């Protein structure tokens, strides 16, 4: 896995940008309505930078893409995306060969980074509530020897459940936190963005991996 990262980013861009308006609408309800623009501009910047990342280590590809996203579309989501990519990348630093089994370590490092940066807890109605169960499900499937495709499927399913669960939550942090009880009833926009991204990653995995094989892609 070297330029696979780039392929995944391309797929994320292709599949998530068309859903930007859904994100804008959700963010307009309990935030400030910019998340659709953020994801669009951020992913455009990632894609624009991919060419010169070709063939470089995964850690660099992740970190540089994260920073490109935030520079073009800095925001809560942007800086969290950058943090996740930088910390995730750091987990496989200097490694030439990154395989599916490293995805778990990347995910955990990213989670830790997000919690350091945003100081939110699970249940605060943020993207953590979508990402944490996804990473956990992936780890579990991976540890149980499932294929990348199966582990990804489990992660996306858990992410969906986690994202849906944010609807009933009351936000306790950041912008939506100011709404208090009025934040209940709306699916968290950041969680939804994470879900869309993981769904896109899954599309890529399904198109590029063997149904049953574990290990390399």
């Amino acid at each position: 896995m070297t330029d696979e990262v780039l392929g995944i980013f391309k797929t994320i861009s292709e599949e998530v940008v068309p859903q930007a308006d859904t994100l804008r609408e959700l963010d307009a309800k309990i935030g400030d309505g910019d998340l659709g623009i953020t994801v669009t501009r951020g992913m455009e910047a990632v894609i624009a930078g991919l060419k010169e990342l070709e063939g470089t280590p995964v850690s660099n590809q992740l970190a540089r893409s994260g920073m490109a996203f935030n520079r073009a579309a800095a925001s809560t989501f942007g800086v969290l995306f950058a943090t996740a990519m930088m910390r995730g990348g750091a987990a496989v630093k200097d490694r030439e060969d990154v395989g599916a089994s490293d995805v778990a370590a990347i995910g955990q490092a990213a989670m830790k980074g997000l919690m350091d940066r945003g100081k939110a807890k699970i249940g605060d109605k943020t993207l953590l509530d979508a990402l944490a169960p996804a990473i956990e499900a992936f780890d579990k499937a991976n540890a149980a020897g499932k294929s990348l495709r199966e582990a990804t499927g489990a992660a996306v399913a858990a992410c969906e459940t986690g994202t849906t669960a944010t609807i009933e939550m009351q936000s306790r942090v950041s912008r939506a936190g100011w709404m208090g009880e009025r934040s209940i009833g709306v699916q968290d926009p950041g969680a939804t963005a994470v879900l869309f991204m993981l769904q896109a990653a899954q599309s890529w995995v399904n198109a590029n991996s063997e149904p049953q094989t574990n290990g390399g892609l």
Partner: protein
Amino acid sequence: MAMRKIINDPSLVEDQTVAGILAAFPDHLKRVEGSTRALIRADAPVAGKVGIATGGGSGHLPLFLGYVGQGLATGCCVGNVFSSPSAEDMLDVTKAIDSGAGVLYLYGNYSGDTMNFDMASEMAEMEDIIVKTTLGRDDVTSAPNEEMERRRGVAGIVFGFKIAGAAAEEGRDLDSVHAVAEKAVFNTRSMGVALSGTTIPAAGQPGFEVAEGQMELGMGIHGEPGVEIGPLLTADEIAGQMLDRILPDLPFSSGDAAAVLVNSLGATAPEELYILYNKASQILGDRGIKVHRAFIGEYATSMEMSGASISICKLDDELISLLDAPAYSPLLSQQLGR
């Protein structure tokens, strides 16, 4: 996609705004090399003086770029409309304004900004620049008094720029500038009311709407909801409700001196601000609070949003002398010094 906006490509609004500001005031501001969104005083870094960096989303002019100037902030970067600038831009500003005396980050308490400024300060520390942070959190409606650290910043940060800027200009050290910035920010309480939403150009449609004849009491400057939505009240009632929430919150007491800022969120006309101030000054007079100085105009906007806010800063002798010190920026609604 019809918006009542005079723009070109919606995705170029931010860059073309910055370019226009630079074209208009080339003697006053300069660009940090390599960044389209980071501007600093033409004479920065100012030898021996603490630098003050601020920043936030575009769409709030004269906030933030308008507060860069003599006796005010030293540098600034802006993000996309209503979105934070990036940690990298902030780092660039920090490096460009640091004269060795350290840098104060002074900005509003929004998660995108705090997370990016935090990341920038971590990076600045790695380059041996000392950074301290003060957050504007003056909006009394955004969280109860006990959870003040969750409150968002609105127009009240203007007092922070003026006071911290004057302290830095005096040549105080970073600890002292930081301390007085904290005092200014802590002594300031604000509340706003919105009569309409606003449209982010790149989104093309209003993120928030307030029906005609309605108002949102306590709405934030990006349209964040406030305490309640209800029928549009009269100016006198609005001034009364704002002061009823602002005054007990610090509290402001009889005998206090204060600076008062009546701010338009954009579309609300100066006439309406003076009508609000007319009532506010009567209420303050009745409560024995002495207005040292009034600021009335556009100080922190949300593009074409209709609405207004009132901010009050309690003053002691130190704050009065810093508030009255000279300051200059060609973008400001009213010069902040005498």
